[in-house]
């Protein structure tokens, strides 16, 4: 089936099998490898992307379902060509370890900040309920992001 998906402002068109997942489209058709595949069942959040501004686990959606949608992946996240507030907070705190989950955390964190204006502990715990980090025990991530505000 022919689909066209706008990823980070650019249209990608391809003739894909109906069973192709969105994450495979992003990684294999668009060639954007920053979105990772951790569990293929929606339990880990490593493949999180934004669809029309809202977080979605891209392993749970088919590419054909995303036809015509606007998607933001980790490669499209940032601010003025540099890191955004969430990326800066995670970077300066040295909170992350193996980095496999990180892009999912950045994507969801970026949405949570946009939605709430500030990342309180409650916002963090609610927003990241679908993101697994196996290395840090989450506490360093919570500490790094707590109090981050949107700078306009």
């Amino acid at each position, binding site marked *: 089936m022919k689909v066209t998906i706008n990823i980070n402002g650019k249209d990608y068109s391809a003739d894909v*099998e109906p*069973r*192709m997942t969105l994450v495979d489209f992003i*990684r294999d058709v668009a060639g*954007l*490898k*920053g*979105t*990772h*595949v*951790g*569990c*293929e*069942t929606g*339990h*880990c959040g*490593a493949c999180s992307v934004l669809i029309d501004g809202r977080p979605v686990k891209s392993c749970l959606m088919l590419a054909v379902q995303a036809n015509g949608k606007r998607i933001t*992946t*980790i*490669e499209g996240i*940032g601010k003025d060509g540099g*890191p955004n507030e969430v*990326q800066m907070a*995670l*970077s300066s*705190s*040295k*909170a*992350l*370890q*193996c*980095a*496999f*989950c*990180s*892009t999912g955390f*950045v994507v969801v964190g970026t949405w949570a900040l946009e939605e709430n204006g500030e990342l309180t502990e409650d916002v*963090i*715990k609610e927003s*990241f*309920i679908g*993101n*697994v*980090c*196996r*290395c*840090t*025990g*989450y*506490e*360093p*991530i*919570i500490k790094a992001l707590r109090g981050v505000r949107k700078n306009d």
Partner: protein
Amino acid sequence: MIDRSERFLHGETRFVQDIELPDTLYLEVLRGPVAHAKITSVNGGISAKDLGLKLISVGESYRRGSGYQSEPVFATEKILYYGEPVAAVYDKDRYRARDMLESIDVKYEELDPVVTIEDALSKPPIHEGHTDNIVGRFVIGERFDKKGEVTVEDELSMERIVPNPLETRGIVAWYNSGKLNVFISTQSVYSIRRGLAGALKLDERDIIVHQVDTGGAFGSKSAVYPEYVIASYISMKERKPVKWIESRQEHLAATRPGRGAKANLRLYANNDGRVIGVEGKVYVNVGAFADDLSSTAPSWISSQITGPYAIENAYIEGLSVYTNTAPQGPYRGAGRPEAAFFIERLMDRLADAIGMDPAEVRLKNLPSGAFRSPTGLEVNGSREFFEKGLNEIGYWRMKKEGRKIGVSFGILIPAVYGGESAKITLKDGKASVWLGGAPHWQRQELFVKHILKDVLGIDQEKVELLNSDTAELNVGIGTWGSRSAIVAGKAVYMAALKLKEDAERMGIRDTASLLNSGLSAEYYEPENLDPSFISFILTAAEAELINGIEPRISRCWAYYDVGEPLSQEAVHGQISGGLVMGIAEVLTEALEYDKKGIPVARTLSEAGVAYINQVPEMHITFVSYGRSRAPHGAKGVGEAGTVGAPPAAARAIELITGKRISRLPLDRATLI
């Protein structure tokens, strides 16, 4: 220079799943659908008739097991565990390769599965030609007669756990111009090289192993696995790159799970709380096949059963047994958490039996000087450490306030055996560093930077830690067993000292010239365990019942000796990560099998990994209770949390529910 630690925030890491070489073939593996069966025929794909090789033992162990059955690359004659590779297919299209699995026809006759340790001891042997299911028998310590006024005993067990790094296993193998190039997510490029050479009968010099960005491991990526051999074999046959990425379902079924240990122990003591001795049995379920590490696991657990205590008598019989389950492997702590859980649960039992505070009972049994236990374990001055730690975390104050705090006293024995290698090259205005132990961002770069600043005065932003690679550094060991800060740190330190001498000899004075000097230095030296490497860890926990029924750890305290801390953030992150894993091990995390030997969990959540809502309030303090013998004074930390948290968390829950916890994960049905 973009530091790797910055790349992850922009999605610029390169994990093995991200590698796409031209003409790649995708490998898929057909796995045993039952735990125990006689194979009558396999039609289609590559199977044991094409590749009848066995794996060799590589990875963490320093003890040699003997006479065990090692895992074949493909099931031969029998399927011995659910998930065992039976056949393999490949195609240039990944989706089609998966479809091709359906074309393989396997006929088999089911056999009665041996699932538990009890099954192993009572049912017929799973391996032909064996008389029973016993892999190894061990006796640790000596029999003793003196038994004391009080005896407490218990059957204690820790369920198996799948390591579940967020990145599953994966490999790209490419046989090209007479050399096998391997790109892999691993803890040790040298284990992979040795394992592939051994299994495929190749010369190690013809195998080059490149570690790619590695998304966590926790023990699961230290060994060589069948799929790595299969991918290499196909690449040698087809002369094309072959890629295999493990699915999460495959990880849950076939990646080596850790733990799976049981103990029947008695603790003899006097009414004043002084322990006289510990005796009993320790069993480990090694699964369908063994290696050096799993076959000797009961001996390793028993050797540290006296923990930080001055217990004069110990006599433990250890048994490792085969079952029709996935081969067992290391999981963060690998034997240390088992020993700690066993002895610490008995200490709590003793405290309850004689009506004494559990911390008090523990203090009573600590040596203030050097002590060598009957199992050969040497600890030095543990009493002062734990006395201070209890005060620092406010144990006595909280106790006075009526709060119910579980504590555990532990030791962390780092796996320093074999030492480690490092290479530093000063070129193009930067210092490039390779370690023998493949870093996967337990934040080794932080201690590497610290050491280079310390020894050579090089600014942190001029230092890059690269992935491990046999082409860059021909000798090395691996990262596991809380060893990296000690042995890899020492190797970096010694290589840096060598560079300093070279620079002085050449009259290089400023760091700018040094960083463009083209100088390079390597260091490798074996290491042996020294008591100064063993650190003490005090962990405490407080629990609550959500809605009156659901236990949760609300607060925990860690007071850990880390020697000279090389990086605050790295040490903190290792401890917080370990604590949450250790708590999940008590509450939710387990690889359980049904009666037929099929794993119950099919997803990450069903495996019980911790989510963000389970994180307790943490109070993490690390101190230097003496430097280690390493030149930079570091001790280990990676496994401290998984050693310390389970007994403390189990006690905390026991205190609020009044129900004794002897097995992990706790059984919710009996709790309320």
